[in-house]
């Protein structure tokens, strides 16, 4: 939870700077490492990598790496804000279908209302953020558990995704927007590829990395980050010292909505149409990635980097099974076992770290 990256140079003239205890520097590197929330997931990721490297020769090729990273990134883009939300002490069960909603809104608005997809993309951003704000607002107003609130949103969005698509397009999928203005530029932003060392990668990987960096900065180096940890760690204590808990939580739900918008646009512009029934069940995968990455299910602890590694474990497992030419049915088993192992390891690591304090 605490930064181990080199801290910014001490402010010149910051009074009390000389008060730094030299013993702080003596903090054992091992304890620092054990104190990191993502430690368990790093160990897990290495284990999974080694396992599939032996199980499938093709797993260690550059093109396989690209496939794994792509699968990881579409989960990871969502796992990052979901992890922040979990650190803030809440869940979002609507996160999976919100991705589909975001893509549908963008596609339908573009097709029905205008000739330029960018208008649809913009409207989709606003509506998706509004849905996130609605989740947060309902939560902080009613003080019901987020499980209930977002289960409600999840069901409503699932119904609306199917219902509106049926109503407007008459089927379960939207019409193609491939020939509309702005499609190519939008595709370049959300669904293009780039080449690195002779291997083609999907642009979602860059979105994912950028989100991890920004989320880590927010968590560890801004006031908002302090508030997120506090809101999840002890809501009442946070409120009592003046932390705007309600505002923080609404912001976190809007963060999840932002992730849903990015992934939604990627889905839309990877192809040119959206299936209205997609996304159901993905919310659990995001939560699993965050938990494998060291987020405490009760809030107050975790990291964005951990969620990224959780997503990477997910990507390696789902694709590794394919490369090893096993029945993909085994994937869920692996994921479940991984979740249990990672959670146990995390709990153990945290106990060790705190016991030695």
């Amino acid at each position, binding site marked *: 939870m605490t930064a181990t990256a080199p801290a910014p140079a001490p402010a010149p003239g*910051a009074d009390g700077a000389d*008060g730094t205890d030299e013993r*702080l520097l003596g903090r054992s590197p091992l304890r620092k490492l054990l104190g990191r929330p993502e430690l368990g997931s790093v160990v897990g990721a290495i284990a999974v990598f080694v396992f599939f490297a032996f199980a499938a020769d093709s797993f260690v090729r550059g093109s396989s790496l690209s496939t794994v990273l792509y699968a990881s990134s579409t989960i990871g883009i969502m796992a990052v804000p979901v992890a922040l939300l979990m650190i803030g002490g809440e869940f979002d069960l609507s996160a999976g279908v919100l991705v589909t909603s975001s893509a549908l809104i963008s596609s339908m608005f573009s097709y029905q209302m205008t000739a330029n997809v960018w208008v649809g993309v913009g409207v989709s951003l606003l509506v998706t953020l509004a849905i996130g704000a609605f989740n947060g607002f309902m939560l902080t107003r009613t003080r019901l558990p987020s499980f209930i609130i977002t289960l409600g949103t999840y069901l409503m969005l699932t119904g609306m995704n199917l219902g509106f698509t049926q109503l407007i397009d008459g089927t379960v999928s939207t019409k193609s927007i491939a020939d509309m203005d702005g499609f190519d530029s939008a595709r370049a932003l959300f669904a293009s590829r780039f080449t690195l060392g002779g291997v083609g990668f999907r642009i979602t990987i860059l979105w994912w990395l950028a989100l991890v960096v920004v989320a880590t900065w927010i968590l560890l180096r*801004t006031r908002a980050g*302090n508030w997120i940890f506090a809101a999840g*760690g002890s809501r009442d204590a*946070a409120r009592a*010292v003046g932390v705007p808990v309600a*505002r923080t939580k609404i912001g976190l739900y809007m963060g999840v909505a932002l992730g849903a918008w990015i992934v939604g646009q990627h889905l839309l512009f990877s192809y040119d149409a959206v299936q209205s029934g997609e996304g159901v069940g993905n919310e659990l995968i995001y939560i699993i990635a965050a938990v494998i990455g060291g987020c405490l299910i009760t809030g107050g602890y975790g990291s964005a980097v951990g969620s990224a590694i959780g997503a990477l474990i997910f990507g390696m497992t789902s694709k590794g099974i394919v490369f090893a030419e096993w029945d993909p049915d085994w994937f869920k088993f692996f994921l479940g076992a991984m979740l249990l192992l990672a959670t146990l390891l995390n709990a153990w690591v945290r106990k060790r770290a705190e016991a030695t304090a």
Partner: protein
Amino acid sequence: MTTKGDGVTDGGGEDTPADAAGAVDAAGAVDAQGGPLVRLDGVSKHYGNVRALEGVTLEVHAGEISCVLGDNGAGKSTLIKIIAGLHRHDAGSFRIEGEETTLGSPREALDRGIATVYQDLAVVPLMPVWRNFFLGSEPTRGKGPFRRLDVPFMRATTHAELRRMGIDLRDVDQPIGTLSGGERQCVAIARAVYFGAKVLVLDEPTAALGVKQSGVVLKYVAAARDAGLGVVLITHNPHHAYLVGDRFVLLKRGVMAGSHTRDEITLDELTRQMAGGSELDDLRHELERAPAPAHLGGRATKSA
């Protein structure tokens, strides 16, 4: 470059407004100079049809400790939640430095110089000590998107402030939950003093602590008083109260059962009033076996 307590305005605002405070005549008004920092007059609070507090009067003066004593459920916490801005009073008057006030949020109370340390929710256990110390009032540097926590300053200040109160932490990065209960209370008190609180409210700071740790906490309470703060100390232990207190208010089922200054009352009398009736003999028996740990605090004791 570093700012204290800037810019945080939203305290959550999660409380619904209570009925307007009943107006009380201005007889209690005092000039801001010599008068009490906080004065409650005939304050009442109802939770639905539960009458948690009825007609309670309390004064808090700079450099003095006002103790609120009472059994469980007597309304002590309710009283301080009104002072801390968590609840609004239904009737009576609440003056801060002579000015009639209704606080809407803990943030508002903080901005008026009232800091509250709750027994169980003083800190966020999993967060490092230095993050807890500045929680809600984090100093930042840099501009725009690069506005960031002034981490070196935060760490150094936390360390220095705690050392000033006699707590020498090996590592301000350790989760505050790994400190002892007494140390956590002390961090919370040090934080209140550092952020320039005028009034420090402590809800049963010694309730969960052993004798020795209670002594340590009482020493910091006395230190805060010596630094010129007005302190409200909630306790159900008359011994702890009498060690440091200047004024004593007794609550019984939401109503005042007594209000005394130190020179009006002895420890025995205070204990008698606290216990009352048949419980008294049991209690006296108990107290004879465990005499007050006078060396741990008291008026004369100055903190390190």
